[in-house]
């Protein structure tokens, strides 16, 4: 995020796109509600009538995958009506002309045809955004989980740059991160191209620095990103180490991955629970959960905050960092960290943005008052950085990147007539290995469901509550139909969380060419009613029941027959 969460409440205009904020980030949503209550204008662009639209001034119910059209059309309006910030563009950016040219053909009227958003609404939003000083953009996976996710982000950045809504309180561009420490994991170098602190592995200076620090020769070849890795398991990859993740459940097109994993030679899994991936593991290490270890998480506003040990892990389980030290040493290394704080210190020593932060400083200096410190924080007396880009755009000038609309990789056709998107709900968390174990949360949303528009439901003879088979070119799952106007006609939506009906059996693993992020948001699908059986919504074709029996995930098969009564 370029801004802090605390600044949201002071915003005067909020453009929320591709973010089901009240479900995925309830606390951010509270701040947004507060801004709206204090008179801010909010526009929500989302294919579904999500809760946030109930308090928004406008809901742009955009066709899934057409974000570039919407955003370029907004840029078109801002340029056409002379609402750009000329000074900011001249002093702080490059390449504006390219964008000016490229958006010329993206007229609101054309955009209406593709996005389904009325041209007047596009104009209104563009004007309002450009002319409000404290105007912030908020987005999440709805923007990035596309094969053109990077394009979407560039298109948003173009809007920010041409209006100069950057480096000011409550303005800027704010990706709301999904998981707790996505930011911190990136910062720490869990990336095929970056050492800690975004120092490139193919930069000889960075390589030399880490070779000196670690006392070994290092590879200058960038590695594979996750999406690439998962495609070559069993072909180029024959050994995997997986920490704290359920790749089988989280990966798009997981049926392919399961086949590939059978050709993999060795897999080490480190987790607190036996997850789906465990079926392919040779060794499993029992790991502690967050309440059982010391360390830091970095939130989406770059705030490094402490995780503190409150209880001991059960049995022989141990904190992940302790296991990693032992594993490295078993592989011939000589690591001697006595505490997580020591690990942090080593990380920070070679990554200038983090040098000023330490466990000790967080523990002693900021007890009350917003806790933690926001990087960049280059010295131990530096107060941390509230919003990025304050003193001019980071790393020189802001670069405009013209983007052209590319249709999603797979769109509805004769065989699969509906457009399927997947997402999160408030009550569950990603693979739900944690939240599905919570009896309360399971009560509120006990089984997999798919939302379908009344018109499409009628065409297919689907009634509310029917058990349906939801299929794509890659596989099919069973789920409960919810007939709802939350979704646009022609679109259906299903949550990711249910192990029994893994939405990822269905999704397309076509990745974004730059980031490798898979297209979870858009693929072609079809829905048909099936007879309710006792297997019901808990079954899906696949090896889940084939290998090792009804999975370890603790979910008791739901008696769908009983439920249908």
């Amino acid at each position: 995020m370029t801004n802090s969460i605390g600044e949201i409440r002071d915003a005067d205009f909020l453009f929320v796109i591709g973010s089901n904020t009240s479900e995925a980030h309830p606390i951010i949503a509270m701040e947004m509600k507060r801004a709206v209550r204090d008179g801010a204008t909010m526009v929500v662009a989302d294919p579904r009538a999500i809760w946030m639209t109930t308090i928004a001034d406008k809901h742009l119910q955009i066709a899934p995958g057409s974000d570039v059209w919407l955003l370029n059309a907004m840029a078109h309006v801002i340029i056409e009506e002379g609402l750009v910030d000329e000074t900011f563009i001249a002093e702080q950016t490059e390449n504006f002309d390219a964008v000016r040219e490229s958006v010329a053909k993206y007229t609101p009227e054309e955009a209406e045809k593709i996005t389904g958003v009325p041209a007047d609404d596009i104009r209104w939003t563009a004007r309002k955004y450009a002319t409000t000083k404290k105007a912030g953009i908020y987005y999440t996976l709805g923007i990035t989980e596309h094969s053109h996710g990077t394009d979407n982000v560039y298109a948003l950045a173009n809007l920010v740059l041409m209006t100069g809504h950057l480096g000011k309180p409550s303005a800027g561009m704010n990706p709301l991160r999904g998981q707790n420490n996505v930011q911190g994991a990136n910062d720490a170098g869990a990336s095929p191209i970056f050492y800690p602190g975004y120092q490139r592995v193919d930069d000889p200076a960075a390589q030399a620095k880490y070779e000196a620090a670690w006392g070994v020769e290092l590879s200058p070849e960038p590695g594979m990103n996750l999406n690439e890795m998962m495609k070559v398991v069993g072909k180029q990859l024959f050994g995997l180490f997986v920490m704290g993740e359920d790749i089988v459940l989280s990966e798009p097109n997981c049926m392919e991955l399961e086949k590939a994993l059978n050709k993999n030679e060795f897999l080490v899994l480190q987790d607190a629970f036996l997850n789906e991936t465990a079926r392919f593991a040779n060794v499993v290490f029992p790991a502690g959960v967050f309440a059982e270890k010391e360390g830091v998480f970095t939130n989406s506003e770059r705030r490094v905050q402490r995780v503190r040990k409150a209880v001991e892990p059960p049995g022989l389980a141990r904190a992940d960092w302790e296991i990693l030290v032992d594993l490295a040493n078993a592989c011939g290394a000589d690591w001697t960290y006595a505490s997580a704080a020591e690990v942090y210190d080593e990380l920070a020593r070679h990554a200038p943005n983090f040098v000023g932060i330490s466990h000790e400083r967080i523990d002693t200096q900021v007890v009350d008052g917003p806790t933690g410190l926001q990087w960049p924080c280059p010295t131990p007396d530096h107060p941390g950085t509230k919003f990025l880009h304050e003193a001019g755009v980071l790393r020189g000038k802001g670069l405009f990147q013209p983007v052209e609309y590319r249709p999603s990789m797979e769109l509805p056709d004769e065989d699969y007539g509906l457009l399927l998107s997947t997402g999160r709900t408030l009550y569950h968390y990603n693979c739900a290995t944690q939240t599905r174990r919570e009896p309360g949360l399971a009560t509120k949303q006990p089984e997999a469901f798919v939302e379908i528009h009344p018109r499409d439901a009628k065409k297919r003879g689907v009634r509310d509550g029917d058990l349906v088979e939801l299929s794509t070119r890659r596989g099919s799952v069973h789920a409960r139909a919810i007939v709802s106007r939350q979704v646009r006609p022609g679109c259906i939506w299903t949550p990711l969380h249910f192990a029994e009906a893994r939405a990822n059996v269905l999704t397309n693993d076509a990745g974004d060419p730059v980031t490798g992020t898979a297209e979870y948001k858009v693929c072609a699908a079809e829905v048909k009613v099936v007879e309710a059986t006792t297997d019901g919504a808990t079954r899906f074709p696949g090896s889940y029941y084939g290998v090792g029996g009804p999975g370890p995930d603790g979910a008791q098969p739901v008696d769908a027959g009983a439920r249908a009564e």
Partner: protein
Amino acid sequence: MSENGQNGTSTIEIEGRTLAFEAGETVLEVAQRNGIEIPTLCHDPRLDPAGACRTCLVEIDGWRRLAPACATKANAGMKIASENARIDRHRRSLLALYMTDHPSDRETSERGAPDQLLDMVEQYDAPSDWGWLETLRSDRPDDANPYIHFNPDTCIVCARCTRYCDEVEGVSAITLAGRGSQTTISTVDRLGLLDTTCEMCGGCIDVCPTGAMGEKTPLMRGDKPERELTKVRSTCNFCGVGCQLDLNVDPDGNDGKGRVVKVTSPPTGTTTNDGNLCVKGRFAYDFINHEERLTTPLIRNAAGEFEAASWDEALRVAAQGLMGVRDRHGADALAFVSSSRCTMEENYLVQKLSRAVFRTNNVHQCAAT
């Protein structure tokens, strides 16, 4: 902002101290900012003032009646007393009235959260012999929601919970219902919370000053009350907001390993989340003590089954397995998937393991967005 407040230079006087205020500030806010103590129960900085509980009464020169500090805007030149005999007399009568239908022993009233009304009664030495009435407030005994318990006996109808639900969470699931001494906290048609717009944020529990809104599970399990638990400040492990929270630990639980009994939010105004949490951050912690937690390393044996193993053995087998792949296919045939659920330190170690020990850059976190 400061234009209306005469450039922020206006002042009021509290207990003889001259204090500057900004336009729009309440007497309570000015007092609190300057460390002057005024007791409150229904006040919450996140909410519009309600002036409901009357514990914050102050005396303002020239005003006939005592005024609630939380709901009175500071006005240039006001002279205010926050402690004197009149205020004390009023406050003690008020507290005594509250106590006529409020349990006075902590064991009954504090089964879950600390009861600030009892604290106040002690602090101001309020009489507690004004008689005893059975409360007329009704509860909703068949509310099957898993998390939130309402105890009408200790409710003082300050409406913090309903205002929070309305103003902060924005869903208005709970509401004041009934009149007079029967006023209670209820829902539309007395529905169970699961059937309302409630999002189970637990904010109503957090703001309740007496513990009338309480957390169900610890109550049903008969866990120790909050006062006897140790709070450990940590960061939520669910989403990227990074809410700060307090793990309330019973150190004797789980045979001395410690047990997280419940999670509470730090006071409003002190952290990014401003005292708020969502359903997951507040309630979804059964996984910590779940019976399916892995408690021992496992190795797959020749028959394809997992077998419990010692750490030494598991580490040795894992190391040999990974090194074997490297020796057969080269370092780039290995890949390390790390987790955005783990700490920064752990992610650092995974990439170092991959790069420095195995010499491959095939390392990435899952959920790389």
